[in-house]
C-alpha cells in the first residue's frame, strides 16, 4: 500500500479517562490512510519545534473516510502527552499508512483477537472490519487491562456483535487476572470442539511473550503486532530491529511488521 506524508488537522480529541484518548485527524484532501487495514500504523508529530524530534507510531483505529482517521492513544511520555492535549484545529504531520497489516479471517477458522491495554486499536479495527463484512462470528475479542478504566471503547466493540471476553488484573470487570486466563479456557474449548483457531495479539511485550509461548506450545498459528522504538516508520533508519529466526537475524518492525508470525520472532 502506498504511503503519504501530509498534514492533518485535529478534528476531535476525546479523553476517555485513564490517560486514553481518541484523536481524530482530518486532511484537506483524500489520503491513502483512508484505505488502512487493521495493523497498519501512522507516524504522528505535532508542530513541536526541535525537541521531540521524531514522530510517534500509532495503529490506525478507524478510517471512516478517505480524509479522516482516528487513533487510540495512551499517555505514556512527552509525545503522547502532547498529542493527548491537541485541540481542535491544531495540526499534525502524518506519514502513513505504514507496515503490514493483520491477515483477514480465513473461512472455517476463528480469529481470537487478544488485546492488552493500548494494544486494542488494530484488533478493534479487525473486529470492525470483520463485522462490516458480515464475519462477526469469525472473530472474538479477548481484552485485558489492569482495571475497568483500562478497557475502553467497549460499547463500540459490542456494537460490532463480536463475542467479548474481558479480564482485569483487579477483577473490576470480567475475569480477575491476565487475559491469558480466558484465552487458555477458550483454547481448551476449541480443542474439545476440534475448532480451528488463530491468535492475533497486540499489547505489552510480556503479554505477547505469553501468547507466543501458548501458541508455540499448542501449535496454533499466531500473528503478533509488535512495538519497537521507531525513528522513521518507513524502513530507512533501520532502528526498529526485531530479532527473528531465519537467515537474517533481524527484521524491521516498521516494514516487515508490525505484525509478525509468532514462530518467526526470536524471543527467549
Amino acid at each position, binding site marked *: 500500500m*502506498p*504511503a*503519504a*506524508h501530509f498534514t492533518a488537522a485535529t478534528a476531535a480529541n476525546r479523553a476517555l479517562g485513564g490517560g486514553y484518548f481518541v484523536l481524530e485527524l482530518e486532511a484537506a484532501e483524500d489520503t491513502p490512510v483512508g484505505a488502512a487495514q487493521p495493523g497498519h500504523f501512522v*507516524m504522528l*508529530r505535532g508542530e513541536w519545534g*526541535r*525537541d*521531540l*524530534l*521524531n*514522530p510517534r507510531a500509532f495503529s490506525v483505529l478507524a478510517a471512516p473516510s478517505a480524509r479522516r482517521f482516528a487513533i487510540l492513544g495512551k499517555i505514556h511520555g512527552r509525545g503522547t502527552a502532547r498529542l493527548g492535549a491537541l485541540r481542535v484545529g491544531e495540526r499534525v*504531520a502524518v*506519514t502513513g499508512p505504514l507496515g503490514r497489516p493483520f491477515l483477514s479471517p480465513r473461512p472455517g477458522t476463528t480469529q481470537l483477537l487478544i488485546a492488552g491495554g493500548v494494544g486494542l486499536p488494530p484488533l478493534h479495527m479487525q473486529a470492525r472490519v470483520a463485522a462490516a463484512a458480515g464475519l462477526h462470528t469469525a472473530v472474538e475479542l479477548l481484552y485485558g487491562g489492569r482495571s475497568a478504566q483500562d478497557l475502553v471503547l467497549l460499547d463500540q466493540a459490542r456494537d460490532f456483535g463480536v463475542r467479548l471476553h474481558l479480564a482485569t488484573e483487579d477483577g473490576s470487570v470480567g475475569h480477575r487476572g491476565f487475559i491469558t486466563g480466558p484465552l487458555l479456557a477458550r483454547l481448551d474449548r476449541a480443542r474439545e470442539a476440534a475448532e480451528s483457531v488463530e491468535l492475533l495479539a497486540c499489547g505489552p511485550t510480556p503479554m505477547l511473550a505469553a501468547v507466543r509461548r501458548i501458541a508455540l506450545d499448542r501449535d496454533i498459528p499466531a500473528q503478533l503486532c509488535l512495538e*519497537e*522504538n*521507531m*525513528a*522513521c*516508520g*518507513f*524502513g*530507512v*533508519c*533501520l*532502528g*526498529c*530491529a*526485531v*530479532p527473528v529466526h531465519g537467515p*537474517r*537475524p*533481524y527484521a524491521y518492525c516498521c516494514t516487515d511488521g508490525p505484525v509478525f508470525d509468532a514462530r518467526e520472532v526470536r524471543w527467549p
Partner: protein
Amino acid sequence: MSAREPALSLAPDAVDLAVDFAGQPLKSPLLAASGCFAYGQQFAEFCDLGRLGGLVTKGISPLPRHGNPAPRICETAAGMLNSIGLENVGVDAFLADKLPFLRGLGVAVWVNFFGTDFETYVDCARRLSRGDGVDALEMNISCPNITKGGIEFGTVPEVAHRLTRACVEVSARPIVVKLSPNAGDVVAMAQAVAEAGAAGVSVINTITGMAIDVRSRRPRLATTYGGLSGPAIKPIALRMVHQIARALPHLPISGIGGVMSGEDALEFLMAGATTVQVGTALFAEPGAIHRITQELRDLLAELGIPSARAAIGVLQPLPAEAPIRPR
C-alpha cells in the same frame, strides 16, 4: 528609527543554487545524509528525488552486516541516539541491486563506505568506485558502533592519512572523508586526510552519547553507547566546519549536523561548507530536503545573495567595540 540593511531582495527563481564540490557540479548544495536515506527507494513515494542536490547512501562494507541488537535508537533532547551497527547489504548486493535505481535519478550519488580493517577499506574503495553511476565515495572513518578496533582510523591523524592515501590510490572516483567529531583535533584530522589526497571532508558524523532508562536501570540502547544526531549537535558541527574552513580554505567541506531548515543550511554555507547534508530531519519529514531547498532559495533571495556559491564562507567577524575611555 531603525537601520535596516539595504536588503537587495531578489526573486527566489533568480537564485542559483548550483555548487561545485571538488570539481563536480551539483544542482543544489543539499544532500541526503548517509544512514538516513537507506538506498533511496523508500523516499520515491514521498518526493521527487530528482530535485535533490545529491544523496549519500547507507554505509557499505565489503560483506553484508546485520547490525546491532534492539533497541537501536532512542530520543534525546532535540536529538536522537542510534546504534544501528552499520547494517548494510554489502558491496556486491549494493552494486547489483541498489545502484541501478540511484544512477537513474540524475543527482549526485555519493557512496558511503567503511571497512573493518585497512585491507577491507581499500577493497571497498576499489570496488565501489568502479560502480556505474557513482560520483564520489564518502569514506566513514568514524564508526562508533563497530566494537572491534577501527577507533584510530577516526581519531589518529597519521592513521587516517595512511588509510586515505591507500584508498585514494585505488579509487576511480574522488574520496570525501567523513570525519568523527569524537577526535580531539578535527582540524588535524582534516589536514591529514587532505594531504593524503581526499577530495573533501564531510563534517560531522554523530557524537558518541548514551541515555539511561532509570526504571529498568539499563542503557536505552543495547550497545550502551550510540551516535547523537539532530539539532542538539548543530552548534558543534558548525564550529568544526568553520575551524576546518579557516585552516584549510581550499578543501571542500560537506557540512552535516542537525539541519532542519533553510536557515540552518545557510549557516553551514556561511561557515564554509560547499554542500550540506540532511540526516535525522528526514525521519519525521521524508520531504524535508525539498522544503529546506525552497527555504534556502527564499532566504538567499531575501538577503540579496544571488547564489548558493556566493554564500559559501561569507561569515564576517563582529565589529569591534569602541575603545575604553574612563569617564
